[in-house]
């Protein structure tokens, strides 16, 4: 704390410099980690909203797709004509 005292004393005459303010905030207003439970709740809220905005497509059964149907009709109907 002695360092801060000297620093503040040194600029009594005017506003703080950028470096002084950075040091002041780092020293007296340290960043706090987000509580893990809060992170989980917020992430879950976000993912719910993501699910609403970008709904997951249901996987199609492998046998129901355009190419397979085309093959089927070609093989069993068109080709037999």
């Amino acid at each position, binding site marked *: *704390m002695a360092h801060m005292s000297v620093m503040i004393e040194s600029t009594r005459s005017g506003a703080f410099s950028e470096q002084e303010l950075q040091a002041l*905030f780092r020293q007296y*207003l340290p*960043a706090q980690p987000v509580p893990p439970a809060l*992170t989980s709740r917020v992430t879950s809220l976000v993912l719910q909203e*993501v699910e609403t905005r970008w709904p997951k497509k249901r996987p199609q059964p492998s046998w129901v797709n355009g190419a397979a149907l085309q093959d089927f009709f070609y093989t069993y109907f068109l080709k037999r004509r």
Partner: protein
Amino acid sequence: MAVIETKSRSETDLLRELKSGDEQAWSYLSTEYGNRIYNYLRHRLPNLEDVEDVLGETMVAAVRAIPTFDGNVTLTTFLFSLANRKIADFWRRRQTTTELPETLMDAGLSSDSIEFQEVLRRLRPAHLQVLLMRYHVGLGVDEIAKVLGQSYKSTESLLSRARMELRKALDGTHVGDD
């Protein structure tokens, strides 16, 4: 100089993933960027329940707004703009913009830290806002200008006035006199 850093990851890639609804990208955003917003909100709102609500509202607003976000500002600027809007909504709901009624003091803080936080709370809200964004969160002046929708010049002069007010407020305290 950023005090609360986010882990490096290409913003262009991240934005592309967010816009496609990639869940991993959204989890990453809420964890990494949420940390900076959380630290900002802690000093703008009365208690942790409010911080949690507004943080959630901000991140959900981001999900809703990202499809139309054109990437002309950084994701940090985008998120802080949303956070500031949500803070304004919060105080509008409370119908007051007066001093914060409670404090979010952390256990184990030094008496200087507590006094410093009390000094900050006595500053004009606009001054507190820019000081927190600049020196606590570590945003650049250009980013703050975009968040506030002001020019670089006027943001610089707002910061200058805020520094002056803080200087005067601290002169009457014992912060740093241990």
